[in-house]
């Protein structure tokens, strides 16, 4: 507890200023998106536009295939998330509950290569592999290289290890198949960890940029992040339209964050525990 009023004033003041600095760029984005074409070059820049130009949204939506970008992003981020939610717990369960040849070495190998090796090391060979497979400019090329991750596998293993073996054994005695045990017993028990893993995977891939930039050429296959940058190149002066485009990318992720805020914080905390 802080009792000294001067200290208290300083603490509140400092936090208020910090929060203000954190919010103001987002406010600026929203207000820019509502400015008229001439108003964006006023100085000082308007934080509250004189006339709210909601028509900017329609203009921006019409001047680039944002709907197509949106669908592409949903397909890519959505499929990656679904595949993660199947393969991360499958591998995590195997590493947690089975004893097999080379288990610990294999686990260490997977975790260390996927957590300690930065993406830029794999970037060039990955492009070569994907183009050899004929997957450039396809959903496959965007999805398949990212269907699981060492972090998710680690998270799932940590979560599954404390589940008592009795559940698994009694299912076996009752004649459940090995895959059935995973699907009907283990997977439903992992719900909290699955939510965290799924949310992070989705947001991360919703925001992905470098890999789509490398692997996508045709305008039809662009994701929102790519489309947004092309849109900026074409409308370089029209900041208001650019801000609208940024909002198209921003709003879905923002809504996910609002609904599932506490899971995100918990996810960060869980990732911190492994350190």
């Amino acid at each position, binding site marked *: 507890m802080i009792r000294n009023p001067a200290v208290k004033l300083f603490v509140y003041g400092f936090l208020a200023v910090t929060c203000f600095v*954190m*919010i103001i760029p987002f406010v600026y984005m929203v207000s820019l998106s509502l400015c008229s074409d001439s108003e964006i070059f006023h100085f000082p820049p308007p934080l509250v536009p004189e006339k709210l130009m909601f028509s900017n949204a329609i203009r921006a939506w019409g001047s680039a295939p944002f709907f197509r970008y949106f669908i592409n992003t949903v397909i890519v981020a959505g499929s990656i998330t679904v595949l993660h939610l199947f393969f991360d717990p499958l591998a995590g369960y195997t590493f947690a509950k089975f004893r097999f040849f080379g288990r610990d070495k294999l686990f260490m190998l997977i975790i260390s290569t996927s957590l300690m090796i930065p993406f830029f090391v794999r970037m060039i060979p990955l492009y070569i592999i994907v183009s050899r497979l004929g997957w450039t400019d396809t959903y496959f090329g965007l999805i398949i290289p990212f269907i699981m991750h060492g972090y998710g596998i680690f998270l799932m293993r940590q979560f599954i290890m404390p589940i008592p073996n009795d559940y698994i054994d009694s299912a076996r005695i009752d004649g459940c198949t090995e895959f059935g045990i995973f699907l009907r017993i283990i997977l439903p028990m992992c719900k909290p960890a699955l939510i965290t893993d799924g949310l992070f995977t989705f947001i991360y891939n919703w925001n992905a*940029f470098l890999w789509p930039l*490398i692997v996508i050429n045709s305008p039809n296959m662009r994701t929102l992040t790519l489309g*947004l940058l092309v849109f900026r190149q074409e409308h370089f002066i029209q900041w208001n339209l650019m801000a609208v485009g940024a909002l198209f990318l921003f709003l879905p992720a923002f809504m996910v964050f609002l609904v599932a805020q506490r899971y995100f914080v918990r996810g960060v905390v869980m990732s911190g525990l492994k350190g």
Partner: protein
Amino acid sequence: MRQVEKGKFGSLPIRIYRVLTGRSIHGRDNVVAYTFLSIPLIYFSLFFFLPISMDFLGSLYEGPSLISEGAKFIGLGNYAKILRDQTFLSSLRATFFFMLGTTGVSVALALFLAVLLNEKLMFRGIMRSIIFFPFMTSLVIIALIWSVIYDADVGLLNWLFIKVGLPPQGWISDPNTALISMVIMSIWWETGYNMVIFLAGLQGIPQEYYDAASVDGANALQSFRYVTLPLLAPATFFVVIISFFNSCQAFIQPYVLTQGGPSQATNLAVFNIYNVAFLHLRLGEASAMAFFIFLIVLLVTATLFRFWRTEVEY
């Protein structure tokens, strides 16, 4: 068979027999486990192990790539070449400055904010969420907004500078301030993430330690120095490593904000690799650059591990 068995899994021939037939002490564990792991193993081989080894092999060849025809083996020639490449060396310097600036300031700020927000304050939860939020937003969006904020003529920041009586700056259009501007934006972006990890660390410190410190007559600053800081060492270590790791991979910042300019001031390493590989199509050199930087990062991480281990075991 019994006598031949050694240890938990038996001698080597028996182990191999068991792997091949799937008969282990634990029933069908090998068969089931490797069936479950078949797709993950193919995936990790194809998209992790293979590319990592290909990057090193590719860095030893001249020409567009290892697989293409006419690639010539030149040993460490690419490494010799990139170490004479001024653009690469300047990108290393910029990246080093960027990593140090972003990590240093953001970790210190995050620790300060976490200590404040660990107190019982009004609106604590909302303030935590607000500070954490930028990290969940796409860097593409953030760089787009900040490119407007940094605009030299009509940007928000210069307006603020004029208001408080400071001379307006060129920000991202001035080679002297471009890199610092990028560091500021990245600090703004990632401080909230670091703060949440520190908060988790702080909540793990039992209240009794602080009570004991205050019984011994420690003031707030002393109990921070002698209780909080040492007990937060693991969290701090983790935050520093993650932040280093994130900032060595910074790509969107230069791509969206500056395109590496002005006069290569913000040509960060990954942006440079991307250009060398996919614009100039010098894949051998780009692979060598990637591997070289990876070795540096590995070395820094290992040093930190060493240094910190002794620090934690006080």
